[in-house]
C-alpha cells in the first residue's frame, strides 16, 4: 500500500493547466452574454470566492454530469475559489440546466427568489436556451428566460467541462 501511494506521489498531477483548458480560441463561441450591465456590476463584488447553486429544471442529466466533472481533480474549479453550494441562500450564481418543465417551474422560481442579490443566472445547454429538442411540448414552459431573467448562456449539448469553466471564468472577468 505504502509503495502504491509513493508511486502516485511521483506522478504528474492530474489537474490540468488553466491555459491548456481554456486557451482554445474556439471556446469563445460557447458563451453568450445577454445582460452586460448586470455582469459588470456583479464582477465588482466577485473578486474573491464565488458560490454557485446548480438547478436542474428538466435536463437529460448530461449537463449535470459535466458540471459535476468541474469538481474532479482534472478541472478542479475550487482552485479558483468557485464552490458549489447546497442552498440558493448561499449562492451568488444560479447555474440552470434543461428546458423548464411545467412541474419544475415553481421550484425554479422559488429558488431564484431565495438567492440574495447581487446574483446572476447562467443558463447551461441547448435545452435551457429555448427548450431545445423539447421545444413546443405540452409539458414544458420553454427556455429558462421564460421563468426567470437570464444573464448569460453557455452553449453546448452538453457543454464540455472546458467550455463551462471558460464560460464561468469569463463571466467573472477572470480571463
Amino acid at each position, binding site marked *: *500500500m505504502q509503495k502504491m501511494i509513493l508511486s502516485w506521489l511521483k506522478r504528474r498531477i492530474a489537474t490540468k493547466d488553466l491555459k491548456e483548458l481554456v486557451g482554445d480560441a474556439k471556446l469563445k463561441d460557447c458563451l453568450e452574454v445577454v445582460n452586460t450591465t448586470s455582469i459588470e456590476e456583479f464582477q465588482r463584488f466577485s473578486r474573491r470566492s464565488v458560490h454557485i447553486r446548480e438547478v436542474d429544471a428538466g435536463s437529460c442529466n*448530461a449537463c449535470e*454530469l459535466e458540471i459535476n466533472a468541474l469538481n474532479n481533480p482534472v478541472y478542479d474549479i475550487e482552485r479558483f475559489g468557485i464552490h458549489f453550494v447546497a442552498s440558493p441562500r448561499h449562492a451568488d450564481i444560479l447555474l440552470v440546466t434543461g428546458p423548464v418543465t411545467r412541474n419544475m417551474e415553481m421550484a425554479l422560481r422559488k429558488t431564484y427568489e431565495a438567492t440574495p442579490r447581487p446574483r446572476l443566472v447562467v443558463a447551461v445547454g441547448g435545452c435551457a436556451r429555448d427548450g431545445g429538442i*423539447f421545444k413546443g*411540448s*405540452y409539458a414544458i414552459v420553454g427556455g429558462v428566460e421564460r421563468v426567470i431573467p437570464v444573464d448569460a448562456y453557455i452553449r453546448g449539448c452538453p457543454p464540455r467541462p472546458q467550455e463551462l469553466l471558460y464560460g464561468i471564468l469569463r463571466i467573472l472577468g477572470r480571463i
Partner: protein
Amino acid sequence: MDERRPYIDEIKREFPGDVLSEDTSTPGEAYLTIRKESLPRIANFLHEVRYSTPLLSMFGTDERALDGTYKVYTVFQIPRKPVFIILKVHLNEGELEFPSITPLMYAGSPFEREMQDMFGFIPVGNPDTRRMVLHENFPRGIYPLRKDFSYGSTLDKAEGQYPFHTIEGEGMLEIPVGPVHAGIIEPGHFRFSVAGEPIINLEIRLHYKHKGIEKLMETLDFNEGCQVAEMVSGDSAVGHVTAYCQAVEKIAGIETPMLARYNRMIALELERLYNHIADIGSMSMDASFLFGAARAGILREEVMNLNDRLTGSRFLKGLVAPGGVTRDLFTARDDITNTLKEVGGGLKELVAILLSSASFLDRVKTTGVLNKKTAEDLAVTGPPARASGIDSDMRRDVPYEAYGEVRFKVPVYKEGDVFCRLSVRIDEAFESINIIEQVLKKAVQGPLKANVGARHAVPLPYRYALGCVEGWRGAILYWIMTAPGDKLYRCKIKDPSFCNWPGLSYAVLGNIVPDFPLCNKSFNLSYAGNDL
C-alpha cells in the same frame, strides 16, 4: 422448436378460455390477447406461481384508429430465456376500467398509475390512485398519450396539493427534501418520516422532469427518434439508443452487420465502465472517503476523453443509428487498448485501497439492505437486483448484438447492502474491460450499416417489437409500434430506474438519515429516464 411454445401452451392449459388469441409474428415475443378479467390471475401465475418472471414493463396504447379500442400490454420475460410473454388486454371506449395487478404483484403499481395519468385508464383495485406523472399544475381530464391530444397543446394552470402519506405517532418527524436538493443533482422530492435517527418511511415523489418524451416520439419518424432516445437519460445515451434501434430493426426485418454489432458492444461497455467508475467514486465520496472520489474522478475522465476521441462526444452520442453505427471504432483499436489498460490498472489500485480501509467498509457493509423477496416483488433490475441475489443480465439471457460470442461473468451477491452493490459495480467494470478486449480481437470486415429508410425495407405500419438492452443501470426496454410513412405510432420507454426507485425507498428503512446519500448513490438512479 419454437422456444415460446411450451409457455404459451402452459398458459392456455392453466387458463382455459381466457386466452382469446395469440400472435407470434415478432421473433422471441409472444403476444397473448386475454380476457380483461383474467389479467391479474395470469400475471400472478407468471410472476409468482410458476416462473418467478420479472415484470419488465406495462403500458397502454390508443389503438382506436385501428380497431376502436385502447390496449394494455403487460410484458414479462421468462428468467434466463430470450422469451418475452406479452399479455394484451382490450379496453373499449367508455369502459376504461381494468382489474389492477397491484394487489398480487406490487411492481405493477407505478405502471398503472402512469397509465391512469396518461390515458385515463382506471386500474380497479390499485390502492394508490394519486396522480403521478402530471403534477397539480396540470388541469384534470387531460390525457397526453391519447391520440386526440396534440403534443403542442397549451394547457391552463391548475392548483392543488399532493396528498403525501403521513406517518403519525409520538416522536415522529417529517423531513421534506427537494425537488431542488443539495448537490449537483436532478430534481425529485424525498419525504422522510423518522423516529429519532432511523428512517421509518421514505416517500419518493418524482416526475418533476416530465417533458412528454413518449408523446414527442409519436410526432417523429424513426431516424429522428434516435436523437430523442439519446436524450432520455444523458448518462445512458448508448443503452437507450441501442434498445430503440433494436426495436426498429426487428420491425423492419433488418439484420445488423457484424461490424456494427461489435461497435455497439464496445460503446455499451464503455458507457458501463465510465458510469460504474463514477459510482465507485461517489460511493466513496458519500462515505467521506474523498481520496477514492478523487481517484475515480481522474479515471472516469480518462474514459470520457477516450469517448470524445472516438466519437466526438463524451457521452458517445451519434454513434448508434438504425441499421448499424455511423463510424468504426476499430480504427482506434490501439488507443482503446492502451487507455483501458491504464484505467484498468488504476481501478485495481483504487479498489485495493477502498477494500482495505476499515472505516470505509464499516460505512458500506450492512447499510441499506434490500432483500431478495422485496427486490423480486418490485421487479428491481440491474446491479441492485444482482446485489440482492437475483441472477439476471440481459446480455447473457437475451444475447443481443454479439454478446453470445464473448465470455463474461455476471456477478451476483446475496446480502443486498451498499457493499454488494459496490462489489457488483467493481466486478462489472472489470468485466467491461474484459469484453472490450475480446471484441477488439475480432477481425471483421464489411459494412457498418444496413440500409434502413424511406425507400428500403419500409416497415409496414402498425407492426410492433421490443428492443431490450442491459444498460449499466439495468434492463432498458423499448416497445415501438409503427405508423404509416416511417412514423412512430407509439414508443414506450422503460428506463431501469422506473422499477428501481421503489427499491431504494425500501432499502433505506431502518437506516439513519445520514446514510441516505450513500444508499442513494449505491442505486444511482436516473430521474430523467424515470420522468420521461
